[in-house]
């Protein structure tokens, strides 16, 4: 097994996520903090977003996503920090003077206005002729495929259609930045998946920069060019979906995105490419790809994604192999999930793709079978905290 290709990929990802360009970023959030009384909802967030990106804010309930968005829109005043859009300091501007529009989670459509009037609402403050305005509204209705519903009131259309009206209304003013607060949360699963691609398509057509708030990690990974994971008002990690998933920098991020097995360990020795780690749960040492900033003898966490583990009945004779007993298994068709108990009693999840067609009673392993789990040193994630 060679480690070199994996490291090259890693270097690429790292450089992509902290892209340093000569000109300042389109949107700059500098050390923004928001306190409600003594409670800190957003804690010194610094973020740079490029023009035309779909950027996702991902995090659990109450972690401050909406608050951050509301500060960008101008509804909340930051306690500290500054916000720049396209080089302009926005921090002290009221919402009606910002080149920013928001699509509200509840859609906030005006119930006493028709769909067309809702979409046209933001345009009456723009310097444009009535003909231009009608034209823009027609384009927007076209974009969200609601031309036939222009004369309806919001309560006369479906939830999905309402969501598209809200999007059209927010886009009609051609904002520099569009904020979307859980835009798809109110839709059912099927419609949500469909709408995700519609959103991406519309973003592609308009070129508007999107910031999308979501607590659905799959949605964030599907939609966005980059995402930030937040916890308790802080940004834990920023990067592409791949870099955040494959190279989490903390236990929180590793656990928040996807499922993962985490073990405590102690560094035994550090080599050029691999680090030896003693993991008591495994009853021995394993090898993992080296990461910066880890010292000999340090207590660390070892994390492995379920799909990075290989399950077999025979000893694979490789560096990282552990014995265990299958306690539970679930067959999902395209893959199977095993829950394997280590000698220490710790349960490990293993996700195995059923690449080959198998017959009845012909599984890799069955209940109570003794199996070997193995993994590539590159797939093991070492976490300092």
């Amino acid at each position: 097994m060679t480690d070199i290709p994996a490291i090259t990929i890693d270097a690429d990802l790292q450089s992509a996520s902290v892209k340093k360009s000569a000109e300042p970023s389109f949107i700059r959030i500098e050390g923004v903090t928001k306190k409600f009384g003594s409670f800190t909802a957003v804690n010194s967030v610094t973020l740079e977003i490029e023009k035309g990106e779909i950027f996702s804010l991902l995090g659990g309930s109450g972690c401050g996503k909406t608050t951050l968005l509301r500060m960008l829109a101008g509804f909340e005043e930051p306690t500290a920090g500054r916000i720049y859009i396209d080089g302009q300091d926005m921090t002290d501007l009221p919402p009606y003077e910002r080149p920013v529009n928001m699509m509200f989670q509840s859609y906030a459509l005006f119930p006493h206005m028709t769909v067309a009037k809702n979409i046209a609402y933001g345009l009456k403050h723009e310097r444009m002729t009535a003909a231009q305005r009608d034209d823009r509204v027609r384009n927007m209705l076209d974009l969200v495929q609601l031309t036939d519903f222009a004369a309806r009131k919001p309560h006369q259309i479906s939830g999905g259609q309402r969501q598209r009206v809200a999007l059209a209304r927010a886009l009609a003013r051609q904002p520099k930045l569009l904020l979307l607060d859980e835009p798809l949360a109110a839709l059912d699963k099927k419609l949500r998946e469909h709408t995700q691609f519609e959103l991406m398509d519309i973003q592609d057509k308009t070129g508007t920069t999107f910031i999308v708030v979501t607590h659905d990690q799959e949605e964030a990974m599907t939609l966005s060019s980059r995402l930030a994971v937040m916890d308790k008002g802080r940004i834990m990690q920023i990067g592409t979906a791949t870099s955040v998933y494959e190279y989490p920098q903390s236990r929180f991020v590793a656990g928040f995105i996807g499922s993962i097995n985490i073990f405590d360990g102690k560094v035994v020795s550090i080599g050029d490419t691999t680090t030896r780690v003693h993991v008591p749960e495994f009853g021995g040492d394993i090898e993992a790809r080296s990461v910066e900033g880890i010292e000999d003898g340090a207590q660390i966490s070892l994390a492995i994604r379920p799909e990075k583990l290989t399950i077999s009945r025979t000893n694979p004779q490789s560096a990282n192999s552990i014995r265990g007993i299958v306690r539970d298994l679930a067959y999902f068709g395209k893959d199977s999930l095993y829950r394997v108990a280590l000698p220490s009693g710790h349960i490990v999840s293993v996700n195995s793709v059923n690449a080959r067609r198998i017959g009845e009673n012909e599984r890799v392993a069955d209940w109570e079978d003794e199996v070997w789990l193995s993994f590539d040193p590159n797939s093991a994630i070492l976490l300092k905290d």
Partner: protein
Amino acid sequence: MNEPHHDSRFQRWFNRRGWIKITIATPYVWLILFFLLPFAIVLAMSFATRTPTAPPFSFGGDYPLLNTRTYHRLVEDSLYIRAYLTSIFNAVIATLMCLLIGYPMALGLTRVSKSWRNILLMLVILPFWTSFLLRVYAWMGLMGTNSWFNKLITSGYNYLVPAEDALRYIPMMNTNFAVVLVTVYSYLPFMILPLFANLEKLDFTLNEAAMDLGSRPSRVFLDVTLPQSVPGIIAGSMLVFIPASGELIIPSLVGSSSRPMIGRVISDEFASARDWPMASAVAVALLLLLVVPLMVYTYFDGKAHEKIKSSGGADA
């Protein structure tokens, strides 16, 4: 083991569907007993003939069943028409003033913190805890020529006009102004409360959405808050206008006797003139004047709602 059924037929009927019928019927019974029946009596009385008996009216005589003398007088005698006009004029002005003063107060109530809101709501309702008559008497004191209130207003007036037009006091008592002033004071809570109930339900994110789309706060009010508060405005206005137009006590105590309001006319016809048929006719006409426009409004409003519902249901 099974106990035999002891339930009476009534009990079984009550438990099955009867209680629903009783619940629905109660308000109707109330309305029939205490509104429709008395109204029918008043209506019948208005077609009776005045007699010097007790009670002072009778049917039959020259006019078997229907005597339309009262209604002829109603349109012929300018006293009644003027009284109706004065009543409606005063009530309209008072309603507009209540709206003008009450709307900002109701809106303010929705914008303050929860604890402040409760205190302020208390203050709105607090005047009801003292007798209405007492409060009108207090106003009579305030409007009197020697009161600090009158002096304050007078000095304000004198400050604004040239010295030769200066007044020693402003005659406020026994004027239409006094009637409107005290009516506004008395009925203001009836405007504030329904408006507040309406405004409180409005979704503030709509205001934020309008602001997000480029509207300044004043524009947001006109575009979002005002149109959505129309039901509250109508409810509050009805609650002020209807009793204000039939008001008896306020015009009797502070109003001008040369320009009586309709409540005063009804009372005088009943008590001093002992012309019960005439008094009944005036009351019936007042009711028609107030209720018919309301019914027309409700009818068209209901139709508009039905229209929305049916066109909304068509594609659902």
